């Protein structure tokens, strides 16, 4: 091994020893992602199906039973109660036992058989907007197929300009979630480990050895880079195994883009710690500077195209939005290098700027 490599691996081995002594850090890096995945993944699928439905069938004919069956055949509605009147349904809705009620009038079959519009009422719990919206859309579509005229729907559903996760499936969320996890953990751990060297005064001791600045950075951050790649693998495995995440594009390309993103995040963490030199402040800035871009400005939850121009520009500066769109392109659409090239350039630019600023700062504050 060349002396430079010996020094770099010595630093990396030391970092691994620190990690081994601090299991909370490792848990943060490896357990938190799985918990987040399960939370997001299952919360979303729970929202989408098994809406408790109360049924008032005043008609009691083959036609009315057919309508009810059509509605509950999918996973969306589950019949939990039968009532004789609309009044009897109301307490169920009020207590939240039922989230929707289907009311079929006594002359439903007659109207249907004559080919006339048949009155059917669907009562929805409007308190839960997104569930109500999904249920309404589904029920309307079904009713249209069943009978020629649309049913009367006397429920007012107020729409909010919020992204509705219920309309999207878990697989659309996963790229965003992966980005969030990678950004959070990489920036946080990097910021903490470098700030810790400053805090206990050991940074100067490191600079007193013949190790170069770049060797110190590579040695200290190398383990976290590998840890990040393990996270990518972890999220992919859980996504494929539990949520049926499709991997339509090249895995090599995916890991390539993820590696570039990790470099950018390590650069961001390094910059934060070199500037703040305190674990407490560094961790707070790390949370803020990753949470906002990767959660709100990445297209993970809110589509970027709906944002005002200043926010759109901000979203494009941070690498998170580019990783989300690249991951969606590779995983879901099976796109190749040409389609993700511009995202890669944007991430690399962020990394470059972070690296230049950090190196300057490093030289000025440590001397020599």
């Amino acid at each position, binding site marked *: 091994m060349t002396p430079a490599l010996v020094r770099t691996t010595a630093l990396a081995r030391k970092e691994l020893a*620190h990690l081994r002594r601090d299991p909370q850090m490792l848990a943060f890096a490896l357990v938190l992602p799985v918990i987040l995945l399960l939370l997001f993944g299952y919360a979303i699928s729970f929202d989408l199906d098994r809406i408790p439905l109360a049924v008032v069938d005043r008609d009691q004919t083959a036609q009315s039973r057919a309508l009810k069956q059509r509605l509950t055949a999918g996973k969306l509605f589950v019949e939990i109660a039968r009532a004789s009147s609309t009044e009897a349904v109301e307490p169920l809705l009020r207590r939240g036992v039922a989230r929707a009620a289907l009311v079929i009038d006594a002359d439903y079959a007659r109207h249907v058989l004559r080919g006339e519009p048949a009155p059917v009422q669907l009562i929805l719990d409007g308190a839960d907007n997104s569930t109500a919206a999904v249920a309404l859309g589904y029920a309307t579509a079904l009713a249209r197929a069943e009978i020629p005229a649309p049913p009367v729907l006397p429920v007012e559903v107020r729409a909010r300009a919020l992204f509705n996760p219920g309309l999207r499936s878990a697989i659309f969320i996963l790229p965003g979630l992966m980005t969030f996890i990678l950004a959070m953990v990489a920036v946080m751990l990097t910021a903490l480990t470098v700030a810790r060297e400053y805090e206990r005064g050991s940074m100067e001791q490191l600079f007193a050895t013949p190790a170069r600045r770049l060797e110190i950075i590579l040695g200290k951050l190398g383990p976290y880079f590998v840890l990040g790649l393990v996270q990518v693998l972890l999220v992919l495995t859980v996504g494929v195994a539990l949520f049926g995440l499709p991997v339509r594009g090249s895995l090599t390309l995916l890991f390539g883009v993820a590696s570039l993103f990790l470099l950018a995040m390590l650069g961001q963490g390094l910059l934060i710690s070199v500037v703040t030199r305190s674990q407490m402040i560094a961790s707070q800035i790390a949370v803020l500077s990753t949470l906002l871009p990767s959660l709100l400005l990445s297209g993970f939850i809110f589509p970027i195209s709906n944002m005002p121009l200043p926010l759109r520009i901000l979203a494009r500066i941070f690498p998170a939005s580019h990783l989300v769109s690249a991951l969606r392109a590779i995983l879901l659409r099976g796109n190749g290098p040409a389609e993700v090239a511009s995202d890669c350039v944007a991430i690399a630019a962020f990394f470059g700027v972070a690296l230049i600023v950090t190196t300057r700062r490093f030289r000025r504050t440590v001397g020599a």
Partner: protein
Amino acid sequence: MSAPVIEVRRLTRRFGDFTAVDAVEFEVQPGEIFGYLGANGAGKSTTIRMLCGLLAPTEGHATVAGHDIARDPRAVKRAIGYMSQKFSLYLDLTPTENLSFFAGAYGLQGAERRRRVEAALVESELTERRDTLTRDLPGGVRQRLALVSARLHRPQVLFLDEPTAGVAPDARRAFWREIRALARAGTTLFVTTHHLDEAEFCGRVGLMVDGRLVALDTPDGLKKAHVPGVFLSVFAQGGDLREALRGVDGVLGLQPFGRRLRVRMAADAPLAGPEALAAHLRARGIDGVEVERGDASLEDVFLELVRRSEKQEA
């Protein structure tokens, strides 16, 4: 005399308007223990950081082990060992992990690294506690381990910045025994301290006041030059000692020391002896007088020089 290991010429470091180190000059010979004394903020650490290649000088230059500190700081770093004031070892690592990290950071590898780590563990008597966390070792043991780890790459010069700060007195003595053994074996040592009793162990001592090197000599030379004369330590049961000493010829200084009064007198003064001074004090009506011959200490030198430099500024 062989060529000096450390050569410092008009070395200066400014931080904005503040001059931390002001045109300092000295040389250190191979195998010498060079003590660097001064109050906090006098410029000790700034000097040491420049000599270790950690901080570029504003003016002047210096060579350490033949390498220019400004032009080739990495060659300097390879040739020296450095124990900083704030940090000694990673407390969450074991002695073995600490040693093998520092060996690796100085480019040692493979069998050679393992051999030196093993030897260092034996030397610091830690072979049985090699896998204990450093945090759980007593302070004195940690300090010796830090010294051993700064020497793994066999540096020509060792820079120790306040190495005994916060170490128990008996451990401090053991530490200085090791330092003297190292010097005998040929290592050059540059030690900063604010324990003036420790400075007595140094071959030569440099005294920093407000960024300037105000004195540089052997401990005995410093005492002869700056606090000459005879020290008499006076104890009395009753009476005003200061009043009784007023008008006595050749009194150069008075300094309370516990319940005693240390009197410095010119060597040729008529009362410059214990018996003569005791007789004079009894004659002035002081009760229960005891007078003993004392020694000048570096503390006397230090106080004298600080007083002089304050007078100059005023």
